[in-house]
């Protein structure tokens, strides 16, 4: 009776050849998946490989998008109309797909009814879908693959499903890598765009500051000149003299603020001229202290000056250093309550002159301390803040310090106060 073993041997050979074909298909897939990162091209490649591996005449692949709307989105379909494949994907309930993904379970058409929404089952039958398989990678459900029946014969057996499961594992990892890489590229693009936008804004800000000179300072100078000549005239009624005086005073304040803005613009463009000469820094600071003392005392804050007895001779731009100190003292008076003690201190560390402005006020919260030198910023940025000004003082002070190769830093402790420290190199005692 030789016929029976012959049939078995032929069948065994056919199965072995079929197994070899599937293993070759998996091996090809592993090489082809490194070809590119275009998700749609990858989906094409994956579906054609699976169709060739199993002999299926139709297939489709959907991916789950990010975000709350987690309905699968069709990437590619072969042998089925795009419209029907779209509709099929849209009917798949996210939680059902999630459950399949967690089980890594390939559903045969006989199980559709029990696991899927009736609309999905109806469309899958209409399109003659035989298998629905979740795509997963590193524990995450990424999408779904559908395959039609084998064009050449009997339903898929365990051998075909084993090979499919192995392929799906590789496909999941490849799609996830491609998605992550694409996201990285997109994030980089958005960062680059944001950076370009910031550069444009910075250029616009510089143009605006340059225009201030002509558009605001010129008419303000004319107003001040006319107000001064009115004030100089004799025989004016008291009320007119008083009102003119107020207008003149406020115009001068406005002009000083404007000049600070212009200086700031010049400093940020690197075009601010410096006038550096050797001189006694102690003397300059003492003169400044004596000039500021009355106003600060009048505002019910204490101003103290501490400096070594001996002169401190160094090369510095007197006007610019005092502008920095003025910004620091202004800051201390604006943002502390009455009764605060403000100390202006001069010291020498090696060859560096240190100028400190310390207050024993409420201190600056850590999250604001990191932003305090930003331009157009104040500790309280809200529209209802109590303190006026453009928020440029400290930003300008920092720019000036850098222009003089110095450093300006701030430290603060809540309820204990703040210290602003200006370091100027090349100081030496005589």
């Amino acid at each position, binding site marked *: 009776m030789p016929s029976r073993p012959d049939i078995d041997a032929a069948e065994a050979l056919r199965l072995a050849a079929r197994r070899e074909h599937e293993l070759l298909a998996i091996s090809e897939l592993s090489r082809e998946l490194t*070809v590119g990162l275009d998700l749609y091209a990858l989906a094409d490649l994956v579906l054609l490989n699976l169709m060739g591996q199993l002999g299926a005449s139709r297939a489709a692949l959907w991916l789950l998008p990010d975000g709350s709307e987690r309905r699968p989105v069709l990437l590619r379909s072969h042998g089925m109309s795009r419209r029907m494949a779209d509709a099929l994907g849209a009917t798949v309930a996210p939680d059902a797909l999630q459950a399949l993904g967690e089980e890594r379970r390939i559903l045969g058409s006989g199980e559709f009814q029990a696991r899927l929404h009736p609309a999905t089952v109806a469309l899958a039958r209409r399109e003659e879908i035989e298998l629905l398989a979740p795509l997963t990678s590193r524990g995450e459900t990424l999408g779904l693959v559908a395959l039609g029946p084998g064009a050449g014969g009997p339903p898929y057996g365990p051998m075909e499903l084993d090979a499919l499961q192995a392929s799906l594992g590789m496909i999941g990892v490849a799609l996830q890598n491609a998605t992550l890489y694409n996201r990285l590229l997109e994030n980089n693009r958005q960062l680059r765009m944001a950076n370009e936008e910031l550069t444009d804004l910075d250029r616009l800000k510089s143009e605006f500051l340059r225009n201030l000179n002509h558009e605001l300072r010129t008419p303000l100078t004319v107003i001040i000149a006319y107000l001064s000549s009115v004030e100089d005239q004799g025989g004016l009624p008291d009320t007119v003299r008083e009102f003119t005086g107020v207008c003149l005073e406020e115009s001068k304040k406005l002009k000083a603020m404007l000049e600070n803005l212009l200086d700031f613009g010049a400093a940020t463009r690197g075009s601010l001229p410096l006038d550096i000469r050797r001189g006694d820094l102690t003397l300059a600071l003492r003169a400044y202290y004596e000039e500021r003392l009355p106003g600060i005392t009048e505002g019910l804050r204490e101003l103290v000056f501490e400096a070594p007895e001996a002169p401190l001779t160094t090369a510095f731009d007197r006007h610019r250093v005092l502008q920095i100190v003025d910004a620091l003292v202004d800051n201390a008076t604006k943002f502390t309550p009455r009764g605060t003690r403000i100390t202006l201190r001069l010291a020498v560390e090696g060859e560096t002159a240190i100028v400190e402005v310390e207050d024993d006020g409420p201190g600056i919260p850590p999250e604001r301390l990191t932003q305090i030198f930003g331009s157009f910023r104040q500790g309280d940025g809200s529209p209802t803040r109590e303190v006026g000004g453009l928020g440029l003082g400290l930003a300008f002070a920092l720019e000036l310090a850098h222009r003089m190769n110095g450093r300006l830093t701030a430290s603060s402790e809540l309820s204990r106060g703040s210290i602003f420290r200006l370091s100027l190199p090349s100081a030496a005692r005589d």
Partner: protein
Amino acid sequence: MAEPLEVVSGVHGVIVRVVGRLDAKSVPALLAQCADVRASGRNLIVNLSRVEFIASSGVGTLLSVAEEFRKAGRTVRFASPSTPVLTVIQLLNLEPFLPIDSSEEEAERALPA
């Protein structure tokens, strides 16, 4: 080096001759060419006599093309497949689904007029 695809106009359809390897690298061009023929409303003969190697993605492409033409109500015939192609078609029992002819001429005769 020969072009991977040669396209000529036949009597009752378009003939596309595949040359060399039919794999992930060459299937996009074949798919696009077949889609053009289908969109033009003409029938198609794919000559596979000079295919030296066919990958799974190549087999998948033949299946996809056959199914798309069937759904569009058009005819596609596969002429004189080389040994590597014929081997895999027989292994997967795809002969009933992929209509095969021994030559381009025979395929031409099988196309509807």
